[in-house]
């Protein structure tokens, strides 16, 4: 298993598109006036949108090994804002205890253009093609 690095630019258009798809119209995401008065000072992306992008990167790099038996434990550390340029870095790690034959572990760090970690993940995929 090899790691990967992907980059992605968040836009308000994409946040709005995700809100329509998911029907999650939390004003923190889609209402600039409401969001400006929040502690965030502006709109932020849905956590599940950011995680969907991470999942998309996993699917692009590992295909069905992710979709058929992946695990992911994600923590949202900082908000992702429109205009943020995200870098997704995935590095292989050892397998989970007791699962050496079945899966390959990995760690993912998602940083923004200021090199601030916005999401960190631990996870695993099948170690062999299924």
């Amino acid at each position: 298993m090899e790691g990967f690095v992907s980059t992605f630019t968040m836009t308000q258009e994409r946040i709005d598109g995700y809100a329509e798809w998911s029907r999650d119209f939390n004003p923190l995401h889609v209402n600039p006036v409401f969001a400006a008065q929040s502690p965030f000072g502006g709109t932020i992306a849905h956590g599940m949108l950011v995680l969907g992008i991470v999942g998309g990167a996993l699917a692009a790099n590992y295909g069905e090994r992710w979709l058929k038996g992946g695990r992911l434990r994600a923590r949202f550390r900082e908000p992702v804002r429109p205009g943020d340029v995200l870098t997704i870095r995935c590095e292989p790690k050892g397998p989970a205890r007791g699962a050496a034959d079945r899966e390959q572990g990995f760690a993912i760090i998602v940083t923004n253009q200021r090199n601030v970690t916005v999401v960190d993940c631990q996870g695993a995929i099948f170690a062999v093609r299924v």
Partner: protein
Amino acid sequence: MKACDLAAGQRLTLDSLKILSSDIERYNEVTSAPRIVTDGLELVPPTLLVAQAFWRLMEMVELPDGTIHLGQDIEVLCPVGVDQWVDIEAVVNRASIRQGQLFLFIELWLRVQEVPAVRAVTSVVAPGAASI
């Protein structure tokens, strides 16, 4: 149902869902994810399934504006293909109030024909717990 009415150990049966190929197409557009077809079956991204299951939960449980997603665990136990009916059960792992905010940890079980397909744990914090 209001979020503050949830109690640890509570189980909720949510509306079942069926993901169509068009749903995946739209999802993949916003997440820049590729379409994965294996053995002639288009697979549903697990993050999509969890997002849809969470939406079903929100149809039942009212969360206030300003609710923040803290973390998300996802475990794929069995792949899910398009056009398969998925049953969803939510279990409240933890519901607690700290500094006026409601912290919820909710486990989602997605099953296809009673076979566990995806397990997810969603953690959120909702503001203004006293008034939720």
